[in-house]
């Protein structure tokens, strides 16, 4: 299964929903999408850059170290910009990969998208994705 990426919102927060395999072959696509969300230009009606991002890995079937590397890159970039990244994942076989590498100590990982919003309230979300409606889209 190839990678498929969809953006949505949950409680006003931007969510990137990932389906399929994140591996050495598809990781560049995920990286590109993260870059586009975080670095996109502000103005001319374009949505503002995302600072508080949720990545939903619930439908990820395979994740390798290259995929981990891209997630780590996204986390570091967001933190450098004063933002947050929360991962959504409840699958044991994917969680195991974070545990083995010790990266579960670096990422905030929650089981549902709803829990993601509670985990990082982002009260100072003035630079958030305000083009998104406050209600969830699911």
């Amino acid at each position, binding site marked *: 299964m190839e990678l498929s990426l969809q953006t949505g919102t949950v409680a006003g927060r931007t969510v990137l929903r990932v389906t399929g395999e994140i*591996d050495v072959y598809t990781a560049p696509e995920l990286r590109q999408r993260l870059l586009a969300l975080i670095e996109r230009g502000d103005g001319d009606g374009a949505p503002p850059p995302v600072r508080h991002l949720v990545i939903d890995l619930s439908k990820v079937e*395979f994740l390798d*170290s*290259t995929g981990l590397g891209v997630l780590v*890159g996204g986390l570091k970039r967001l933190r450098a910009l004063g933002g947050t990244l929360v991962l959504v994942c409840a699958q044991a076989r994917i969680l195991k990969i974070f545990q083995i590498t010790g990266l579960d100590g670096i990422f905030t990982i929650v089981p549902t998208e709803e829990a993601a919003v509670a985990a990082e309230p982002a009260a100072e979300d003035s630079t958030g994705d305000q083009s998104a409606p406050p209600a969830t889209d699911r």
Partner: protein
Amino acid sequence: MPTVRLGFSPAPAHVRTARLVAVAVARRAGVPEELLDEVRLAVGEACSRAVALHQLYHRKELVDVEMTDGPRFTVRVHDRGPAESRADALPDPVELVAHSEDIVTAEPFPAATVAVGMGLALLTGLVDDLEVTPSPDGTGTSVRMSWPIA
């Protein structure tokens, strides 16, 4: 002599083929179903690592994967990276993260050295019987992994 041998040019797309073949051969060899996810991930990591090393050192040779049946199902992945890439000191992924480049660097995936280190760390945590050694012929390294057969 291996049961199945796969060589592929060092491109990320072929890593999926290697994973697919490893799981099919492992299943037929009798590796228990509950270990097949581990085989898939481990062989993928070892092959991604080899691809990253070939790309880093501009080696065009095929990455070589050997699968041998029983008494354990054994997979060997050979790369042509220089000997320095040996896992003398196993990297700590958390350390690697601290030193990794920013997401904004233009590279197609995170700096190859970071990917290689992260992959090795994952492999080490994942596979009970794992050995990383210089190749017998002196070029590159060999990752050897094995799993029980039911």
